[in-house]
């Protein structure tokens, strides 16, 4: 994507989600009450995390097919931003859990799925750093990225079906349909997903450009 319009759009959408998420009306549900507003931040950040991890997965596939280092860069930096969004998602989620369930962490399929996601992607970063041969590094880490993403999706699908969950939007189906998104909530929820994803992609691009500059600096080209 070129141009500046989508960056402006990202900023506008995220600001709208923050302001609108705090001010607009929400349905009054038992237990959840006003904490339902966390849906606008926690869930949307995780949506864009999954989208960025998907970008990383596709980047790795295209790297293996074409061998161009630009795809490897996309895979790595989307994973960076995905992990950052994942950590933010865990923090907002556990803050919410403290006020709704009374504990920062409970053993729940959704939470365990999130923890395993972070474990896998941190392992991916460690793997990249511990391969000394720079010509092998992109290829080997791409293989791991593809393999682990597929198994992660399987895990996220299986997990809620083998155990019970306290998490809102559960009951056999790992979606948020029972959350009872009414129309005002949708008006913030969907723009927020688009906003965070565009914002994340912007961060990926910045991070990629920074790494290119760093490489040039190390080669004394600047």
């Amino acid at each position, binding site marked *: 994507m070129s141009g500046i319009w989508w960056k402006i759009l990202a900023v506008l959408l995220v600001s709208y989600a923050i302001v609108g998420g705090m001010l607009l009306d929400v349905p009054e549900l038992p237990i959840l009450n006003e904490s339902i507003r966390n849906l606008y931040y926690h869930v949307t950040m995780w949506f864009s995390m999954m989208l960025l991890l998907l970008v990383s997965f596709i980047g790795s596939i295209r790297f293996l097919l074409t061998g161009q280092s630009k795809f490897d860069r996309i895979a790595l930096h989307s994973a960076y931003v995905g992990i950052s969004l994942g950590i933010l998602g865990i923090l907002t989620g556990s803050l919410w859990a403290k006020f709704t369930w009374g504990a920062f962490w409970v053993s729940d399929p959704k939470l365990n799925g999130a923890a395993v996601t972070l474990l896998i992607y941190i392992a991916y970063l460690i793997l990249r750093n511990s391969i000394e041969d720079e010509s092998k590094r992109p290829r080997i880490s791409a293989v791991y990225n*593809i393999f682990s993403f597929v198994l992660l999706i399987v895990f996220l699908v299986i997990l809620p079906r083998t155990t019970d969950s306290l998490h809102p939007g559960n009951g056999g189906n790992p979606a948020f349909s029972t959350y009872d998104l009414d129309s005002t909530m949708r008006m913030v929820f969907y723009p927020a997903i688009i906003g965070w994803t565009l914002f994340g992609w912007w961060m990926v691009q910045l991070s990629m450009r920074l790494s290119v500059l760093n490489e040039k600096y190390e080669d004394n080209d600047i």
Partner: protein
Amino acid sequence: MHKCIILTKQFMSALLQELKSLIILEWKLEWKQKTALSSIFIYLLSTLFVVYLSVKRVVDIPTWNALFWLVIIFAAANGVNRSFSSDSKGRMLMMYSLVSPQAFIISRVIYNSILISLLSLGCIVFYTLFLENPIQNMALFILATTLGAIGFSSILTLVNAIALNTKNSASMSVILGFPILLPQLMISLKLSKFAIDGLSATVYSKYLLSLGLLDLAILVLALLLFPYLWRD
């Protein structure tokens, strides 16, 4: 069309031939240095003894089940760990020029699955002798451990080939392998729990099917990805 079928048949028989000789080779090499093979079983035995002395008696069925699989995944990780590191650089090069990567990975997966299945059998025997054996449907339990072993060995073999390129491959294969073993482990745990409780086929058939499908998916994925690791 007819020619195509004949070519496919020729390819399949060549692949089978390669597989057969690779597995026999693997076994011969293993048998030549018996310490390596026996060390895996002693590893299993000492882990099991640690478990036995720590818990002494397992009253609770889920704990029994969890301890069983915990021992299995550690023993499996340790057993598969040697599957590439025992190869010298020269032998890898020779393999590279002689066999196709597909045949190579399949032979490794088959060999490691047999190894892990044997380890889990040993584990069942030990648990029966020292702790207790609450398993009501033994056939299903063995089926679950065998299907689990196939998935574990495919994942761990691929991850081991990845980890071999890093500085500390032993701990690296655990870091990389354990998080992605989880889906396999979850279904195996569930299935073996059903076997212990002796539930009817209507309950477990769904899980059995999904375990088999997951094994298949992992195998296909490993087959597709291994050639990229092999190209050194």
